């Protein structure tokens, strides 16, 4: 499949989160419309805003007496709000390029994703700035928050609005561990991998609350788009491992993980930063997970999962990194259960049945 078709398919599958982010942007632009339009007209009521019927029957100047004079924000503050609002409307006008990025030469996957999130994130930066201005009109703009507002600064609510990303990259740049820090809220990343890639790199990202999949046909993307949590899907050329880890599947790993293909061929050369040994290790881990699926794992109790995420403690970015062992079948050792329990309690499972 040519890459542009893949990109289109990925964007189509991500319509839900994409529209959500855009809608939140539009809602914000609307909310501050009065500051951005009315004030710039000096609050004058020309009558046109009453429409023809109004103008035929109502004297606009007298009617203007009835328009409540808003809490006055001083001129300086208004200008600053307008500058921030400009950032927001600029983002609304951007089409899909807001959600699509490439890895540049000498750029790591982490940097590319960070950059893309930070660009879109200036929506959050701008909104925070406006809200701060409303509370204290003299507040200064934070350093560069209107230009770049990186993921690690986003709070839990913002992370749930996170825009989805489609990243084009060469196989050699595929380093799953670099994405760990973004697996939170509803951050979704689709990797369109060009050329030879490590066969099972993403297996390292599997944690109970994270949607992780490797695909060669893009079928899984629709489900990914509907998933209410974080995740990564890598769309790889043929020959790679194909699996889907969908947290909606259930509390047991066997219910969540489905492995469709594991390449027979052993990794034979270093790819980007991944040694043959590391690639082999990835595959071994996938094999181990598959083996685990056939054993009857000890039941792990899922604690109350019905809590809306709003009620949760703010999760630190990169919590997924500590969860590396949770993808393995839980043994009957209680510390592991304890750990699993802890990880689950720290993970956003609000979308789960």
């Amino acid at each position, binding site marked *: 499949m040519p890459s542009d078709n893949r990109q289109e398919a990925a964007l189509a599958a991500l319509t839900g989160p994409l529209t959500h982010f855009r809608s939140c942007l539009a809602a914000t632009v609307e909310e501050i*419309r*009065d500051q951005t339009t009315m004030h710039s007209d000096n609050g004058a009521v020309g009558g*046109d*805003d009453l429409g023809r019927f109004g103008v035929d*029957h109502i004297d606009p100047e007298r009617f203007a*007496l009835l328009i*409540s004079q808003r809490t006055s924000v001083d001129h300086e503050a208004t200008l600053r709000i307008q500058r921030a609002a400009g950032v927001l409307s600029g983002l609304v006008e951007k089409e899909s390029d807001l959600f699509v990025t490439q890895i540049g030469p000498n750029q790591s996957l982490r940097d590319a994703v960070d950059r893309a999130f930070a660009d879109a994130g200036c929506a959050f930066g701008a909104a925070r700035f406006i809200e701060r201005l409303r509370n204290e009109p003299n507040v200064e703009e934070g350093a560069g928050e209107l230009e770049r507002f990186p993921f690690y600064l986003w709070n839990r609510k913002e992370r749930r609005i996170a825009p989805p990303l489609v990243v084009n990259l060469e196989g050699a740049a595929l380093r799953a561990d670099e994405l760990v820090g973004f697996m939170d809220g509803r951050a979704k990343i689709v990797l369109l991998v060009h050329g030879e890639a490590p066969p099972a790199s993403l297996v390292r990202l599997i944690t109970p609350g994270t949607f992780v999949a490797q695909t060669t046909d893009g079928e899984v993307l629709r489900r990914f788009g509907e998933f209410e949590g974080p995740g990564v899907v890598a769309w790889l050329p043929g020959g790679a491992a194909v699996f889907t880890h969908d947290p909606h599947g259930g509390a047991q790993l066997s219910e969540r993980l489905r492995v469709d293909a594991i390449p027979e061929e052993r990794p034979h050369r270093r790819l980007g930063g991944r040694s043959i040994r590391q690639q082999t290790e990835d595959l071994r881990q996938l094999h181990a997970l598959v083996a685990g699926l056939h054993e009857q794992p000890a039941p792990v109790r899922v604690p109350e999962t019905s809590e809306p995420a709003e009620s949760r403690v703010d999760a630190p970015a990169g919590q997924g990194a500590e969860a590396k062992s949770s993808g393995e079948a839980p043994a009957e050792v209680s510390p592991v259960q304890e750990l699993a329990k802890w990880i689950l309690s720290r993970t956003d499972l609000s979308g789960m049945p």
Partner: protein
Amino acid sequence: MSNTPSSTTTSVEASSDSLPESIQHLKFSEHIVEVVSDSGEGAQKCGQIFGTVSAKMGNGAWTVEIIPAEIQPPPRTPGSASGVRIRIGEEKVTNWGDETNLVIAFNEQVLLSRHRLAALADDATILVESMWVEHDDENIRAEWRAAMEELSSANYQIVPVPIHEQCLTVVDNPRRGKNMFVLGLFSWIYDRDLDLVREQIRYQFRKKATAVAKSNIALMELGAKWASEHLDFRVEIAATKPERAMVVMNGNQAVGMGAIAAGMDLCAMYPITPATSVSHYLAEIFDQVGGTVHQAEDEISAVGAAIGASYGGKVAFTVTSGPGMALKTEFLGLAVMTEIPLVVVDVQRGGPSTGLPTKVEQSDLLATIFGQPGDVPKVVMAPSTIEECFHSMIAARRIAEALRTVVVVLTDANLATGVQPFPRPALDVRWQGSPPDMSPVPSGVQPYDWDDELGLADRFVPGRKGGMHTATGLAHDRTSKIDYSPDVNQMGCKMRARKVAVFQESLKPPVVHGEQSGDLIVVGWGSTRGAIEEAVDRARTEGLQVSSLHLTFLSPMEPGLKEILSRFGRAMTVEINYSDDPGDPHITSENRRLGQLCWLLRAHTLVDLDCWTRVPGEPLRPGEILNAIRDMLAKGATQ
């Protein structure tokens, strides 16, 4: 059309075999056309397409639906008559006129219904389906003969047309196709642009398979061809392409579109005729622009949800009709009491009770203004044209928001289903309004901190820091604390009334139609404007000193009314609601019930107004109003 040389024979052969020798081209400045069928045979669709095409060609047009009395009336009965009346003219047309000049009927029984309602001009041309003349069923043949006998009392020119027979050459079941054949007849008679007609048919059937539009177009073309081969007259009504871009739609579509233009994106409603189609329209377009039609479990819940949404920061609206207004009464009082902006569209229908669900009346005026217990000052306005249906929604939202009160837009079934061209609105982004102020409430400001001069207070929308309070329908003080003390209640009532008074000061005085003084002034409101003004114009050509005044704001009322009325020897209202006729048994000046605007104006101006009102379930005809004017002038001056 007295000079139409068609024969009155009922023989089918007479008009079907021979080509007409010469075709008469009849020129008129306007014509009234009707198409009537049994309910379900599609006469309405045919008429709406004809009206729309005429408007698109640049004719003035006004269409009014003829709605059957029942949902499934038995076919071939007068009660089954369903269709459209279209008045087309060279100039702008403002009402449905008096009597029909040309009618096409699908059977003689629905035709009889129009005859009995005196809807047809004495010399009207009638094209009627001929299949009944020699129908297998003896009863039907007898009905036909009896009907022809009854119709012979007028000087109609009756032309039988083999509609069914012709349609069979294209479709198997002509019951679902006759209307397009008839559209073809109209199109030929009035020389309509067939490309426009085809385009409109395709639009009508856009949601069906293309084959459907195709066969309908074939039927239309067949009708036009048949007419060209068999009819010996054509009617010419000159059309001028308007200079301005125009749109054509019905009043309910205009209300829906106006609501969106005004930035209102939540319509809570419960199905009720004739208001429901506003929500049909919105349900379709909200999918594109974003918005919600909340179909609630009942009328009360609908207005409650709208109030909840407005409390949350929107200006929500609800659409309903008389019985629904009655149910919403308590909530309307609450919205006014808690000072929550709300727009209510009441598409008035005939009352009382369930009354005439599909038909026009103007009888919700007093109930709307005074129908809620306690003093409930609000804004009530009545658009008089379909164009105003659109633009009034923009003003309604602005006023509701500025005054934080209820604004009721009174339209009616005539506007709701009527189709009329009007200048295309130049949409303005400012109409979308601005969202409520969400900044923190300054310390010390209270939720009902009325400005004593204006009666207005800041709007505390949930989410505003420091604005926490409980809005209540109980008497409350400036802090929204429940308080039954005499001063507090007096003050609350005063402030809620004051802002409406301040708003009244911004209203422009209404403009007198005709001379500024004279023997009689006719006052109307709402959809009767066109008919009243036409009647006044006709009266003036007879030399009568009569003018008219049309009111748009009924609460508060526009300024200067008393002064205007005082310049005329006599004043009367003309309305579509019930009043006793003076001279009827037992009716005296002490017990006479008056028209609703008449009651209101008498109280408001202390002028001794009279009224002429009717409740026919259809729009008033200018000719009837003219007669009423003549009668009133005959009584002499009162002041």
